[in-house]
């Protein structure tokens, strides 16, 4: 229906992904297949080197019988869809309030200095992209970086620099808290409930 839209470069799902789309179509009634748009965009972004191009949006719109603009709206609404090419390594730094209170400014500075780029930028060699994200949902381990579907937590300036150096060295850093903490347990061991409660303990202020 969009009459004058020019086709950009080509995009097509791989055979495996096409097979996968069938499982998504199966989730929704035939006349509600537009509901597949978000998982499709996400899968296409994975396949398309981490970003959603115009060709991707049009391909998915055609698959779902949606006007192009409707897919465009969805892709621009969610910040998780990258609308321009990204590097091989995408480093997402959370700067929302809890992370910021716990020193995300230092983490950001370390990233920018180590990579030589700012937020939303990609290094010239096309290797690294630095993105600022809103709450990553791991506030208990703030500040947080997301990289390759893993979280790197409890960062400070030094651990951030070490983290990036390791990536640059071609290694995959160990995910999780970077300060020796186990998951979200208290640093340096438990501070309360150290002993098992005695068998005859009374709970809830019994009479």
């Amino acid at each position, binding site marked *: *229906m*969009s*009459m*004058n*839209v*020019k086709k950009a470069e080509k995009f097509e799902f791989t055979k495996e992904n096409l097979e996968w789309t069938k499982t998504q179509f199966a989730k929704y009634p035939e006349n509600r297949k537009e509901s597949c748009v978000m998982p499709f965009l996400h899968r296409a972004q994975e396949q398309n080197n981490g970003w959603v191009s*115009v060709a991707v949006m049009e391909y998915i719109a055609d698959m779902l019988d949606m*006007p*192009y*603009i*409707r897919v*465009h*709206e969805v892709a*621009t*609404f*969610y910040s998780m869809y990258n609308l321009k090419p990204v590097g091989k390594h995408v480093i997402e730094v959370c700067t929302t309030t809890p992370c910021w209170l716990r020193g995300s400014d230092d983490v950001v500075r370390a990233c920018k200095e180590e990579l030589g780029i700012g937020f939303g930028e990609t290094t010239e060699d096309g290797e690294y992209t630095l993105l600022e994200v809103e709450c990553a949902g791991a506030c208990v381990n703030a500040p947080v970086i997301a990289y390759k579907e893993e979280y790197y937590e409890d960062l400070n300036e030094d651990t951030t620099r070490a983290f990036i150096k390791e990536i640059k060295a071609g290694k995959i850093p160990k995910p999780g808290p970077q300060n020796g903490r186990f998951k979200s347990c208290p640093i340096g061991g438990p501070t309360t409930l150290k002993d098992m409660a005695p068998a005859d303990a009374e709970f809830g202020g019994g009479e």
Partner: protein
Amino acid sequence: MPTLTVDGIEVVVEPGTTVLQACEQAGVEIPRFCYHERLSIAGNCRMCLVEVTPGPPKPAASCALPAGDGMEVKTNTEKVKQYREGVMEFLLINHPLDCPVCDQGGECDLQDQSMAYGEGASRYTEKRRIVKEKYMGPLIRTIMTRCIHCTRCVRFADEIAGVPSLGAIGRGENMQITTYNEQAFASEMAGNVVDLCPVGALTSKPYTFKARPWELKNTETIDVHDALGSNIRIDSRGKAVMRALPRIHEEVNEEWISDKTRHAVDGLAKNRLDRPYVKKDGKLQEATWAEAFGAIAAILKGIDGSQIAGIVGDLCDAESMYAMKSFISSLGGSVECRQDGSKIGAKHRAGYLFNSGVAGIDEADAILLVGSNPRHESPVLNARIRQRWLTRKCKVANIGPEADLTYKIEQLGDSAKVLQDILDGKNDFADVLKNAEHPMIILGQGALNRNDSLAILKLAHDICEKYGGVTDDWNGFNVLHTAASRVAALDLGLVTDGGINAILDGVESGGIKVVYNLSADEFDTSKLEKAFVIYQGSHGDEGVKHADVILPGVAYTEKPGTYLNTEGRVQIAQRAIFGPGEAREDWTIFRALSEVTGSKLPFDDIAQLRAKMHAEYPSFAHVDEKPNAEWADFGVSGKVSKDGFIHAIKDFWGTNPIARSSETMDECRAAMNGENRTEGATGTDG
């Protein structure tokens, strides 16, 4: 039925009514930006907040809240005042204070409502949002910093125009309204978003910085660019038409008009015939009215009446056609109105009207299009079919070339043979028609200008009869005309044996010596070369090419006139401005000429002319009524050819001399073909 009180006034409303509508029923005004009667409810501007009990103790958006029994709505409390001031302050945070240079100034909802409901001052000191202009085509100028995100334009594109290319991209503060990839908004009704926009974000591009609303003279009149007879308002300043806007007429155009109606008006100032011309020494030369009349009288003197033929064009008003008919028949000649070669007859009114009425589309449950592309022949009527189709209560099928009509159609083939199959019950759509309560068949001009058109007419007639298309309260036989003058001309009986081709052949064979052409520009006039041609019209177009005398008439904005739309509804147009130079209203030219040729017409002013016309043709006296024409037997049984239909309109943007003279229409044509795209500017360009 829910009963509720609004500010103490009790109202009873239909179930499903919103609180906002209930307030309107009670006569209480609710400010709003995103809510629009003809669009779906968005509820995103929050301007319509009211207090409602029972309910949570917070403001309620009245546009999206169904009215319930026993509700108590308050709109005049201190709290509501605060809600409105708050919303207005937020809306104005990013809205620039550029009213003095904004085309919307003086007719802006935001301006008016901030005066009425705003606080008068802003407390905002942070940075404001700046949004780059978007390209939306040659008709819509965008200044997107002014946008308040009501999404009326997006909903219009989706729901009414059926060209879903507008959308809101981004989110939150970064949300922007745009067309996909900044392409032109490719609809024939795109201009309506300018009316819908409650602020100055979308304004008319051709009208940019042309005038202020308070300096314009408003004339309520009728459109002639298609046969729908849209009700319009012509805004003029001095001797110039500045713009055309729709008027509301629920049974005709609701509140929409096509882009041709709205934007071809710049063609009114170009290529105009502003003085008479007479051919001397093989060349057209400027002349006085007396010289032109003298030349005509001299020719007519030695000529038998049967050697005179008249042809009327597509934009003529009934008065000029009546005057022409009176004049030509006083000489013994005859007048023809079907310059497109249509075979339609003038004998039975039901045989050439849109009998169901435009509003009848709202009731139709099966529509069969025959040789018609309503999107080009009448975009507003097409939008109405789309509205009906959206309710899922109506099936639409098409016999003719495939076309994108903005709704799904069942393509039955493009040959007239399919009609025969439907009549014989051999086509599945026959059952759809049979089971429909209000079946409808729409014949386009593409079905009527063929050699087998009378047989097609007969088939359509029989299909209507056979499948319950004609009952006491329903007539599903419809002809969609393309010429605004056609129905009036047929009512006046302006048809001749053999039609336009007989006239052209007569000229070729020498049987016709004089052709009086009243602004007919849609046929090949080179075939008139052998005759003495008198052309009377407003524009120098096809018709003047082989003319021997040119008499300057006026365009539709420059004369009062009666028009009958495709339904046969009589509508009266008013004069907005006077014609250029020595151009005269067309009926007066016939009146003056008749005096020179010695057969003075019996009317001296338009009132006398109308009285005579109404006496002779009573249907013209029933203003603004949908006629109920008596069903009759029309068409001629015969074989239909298997040739495919060809739509009557090949170029929507250039169907008449006014549109062809319009630069805006040229730009629209180019934009629709994907040309002329200009980069979005930053907001400072004129």
